[in-house]
């Protein structure tokens, strides 16, 4: 048997189920449940197969928060070890991938706290109105803009500088492609809070990036939608 550690922050609160696959490579949930049962019954080597489909996405999430590949790798290793030790605490109300991401998030938060490199996690002022940047001429086509390294850097810097509560939600939704309810599960917050934080994150990024990206736009062009 595996050593039974406390569930710590890894247990997900029961919440609404997700309404679409968060990741295209998500395995069949029934098959996954059988593998988890087998691991808990002693076939621990199957844990390798269980997490293999998610090792990329978990790394990408942690990397987006930490911005350092070596640190991200260390944090992912710790997170997945924690998942192994706490697998008994996994509840099937949430997708296994969401559970893994929540553990990785908690591990990344702990790491960031230790590094004292984050804004206060409890600066959750969700009542302040945030107005978008008023402009009328940044409508560049992203695929053209993406050719420019400075655009990517501007984007990464802007996301990194978001307050943590907004950065997490933004990354879960826009980077990890979790649904609103899955993001709520991963963060143990309400779907309403996810929506509020997501809106603020998007508007903060629009405020920050639109004036900077406008001069880089190669030409004006309207989107087809």
């Amino acid at each position, binding site marked *: 048997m595996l050593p039974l550690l406390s569930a710590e922050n890894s247990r997900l609160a029961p919440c609404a189920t997700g309404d679409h696959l968060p990741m295209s490579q998500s395995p069949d949930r029934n098959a996954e449940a059988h593998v988890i049962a087998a691991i808990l019954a002693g076939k*621990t080597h199957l844990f390798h197969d269980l997490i293999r489909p998610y*090792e990329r996405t978990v790394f990408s999430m942690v990397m987006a928060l930490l911005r350092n590949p070596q640190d991200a790798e260390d944090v992912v*290793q710790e997170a997945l*070890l924690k998942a192994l030790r706490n697998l008994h605490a996994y509840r099937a109300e949430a997708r296994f991938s969401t559970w893994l991401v929540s553990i990785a998030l908690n591990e990344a938060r702990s790491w960031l706290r230790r590094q004292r490199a984050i804004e206060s996690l409890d600066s959750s002022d969700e009542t302040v109105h945030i*107005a978008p940047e008023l402009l*009328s001429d940044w*409508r560049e086509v*992203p695929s053209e803009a993406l050719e420019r390294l400075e655009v990517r850097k501007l984007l990464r810097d802007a996301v990194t500088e978001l307050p943590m509560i907004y950065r997490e939600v933004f990354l879960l939704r826009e980077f990890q492609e979790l649904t609103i309810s899955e993001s709520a599960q991963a963060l143990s917050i309400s779907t309403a809070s996810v*929506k509020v934080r997501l809106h603020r994150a998007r508007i903060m990024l629009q405020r920050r990036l639109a004036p900077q990206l406008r001069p880089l736009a190669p030409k004006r062009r309207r989107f087809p939608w």
Partner: protein
Amino acid sequence: MIDCKHVWDRISDFLDDTLSSETRKLVQKHLEHCEVCSAILDSTRNILILTADERVFELPVGYSERLHARLEEEIRPYRN
């Protein structure tokens, strides 16, 4: 009719298509004649598209091997 501030507050829900059909129509109608709000919508949507493109990235060389080697250190003692 709704004013610009109401549209700004609904941009995120508009992009996620989670507005009620009635509100969505009001926002759409506003966007048709408001250059400022339609530019805000476009620029916000562009940021999301740029973020989506960031999903494609290279994993560090040997990442998976190191990860599974570390996991194996944990797993091995329980195999017997």
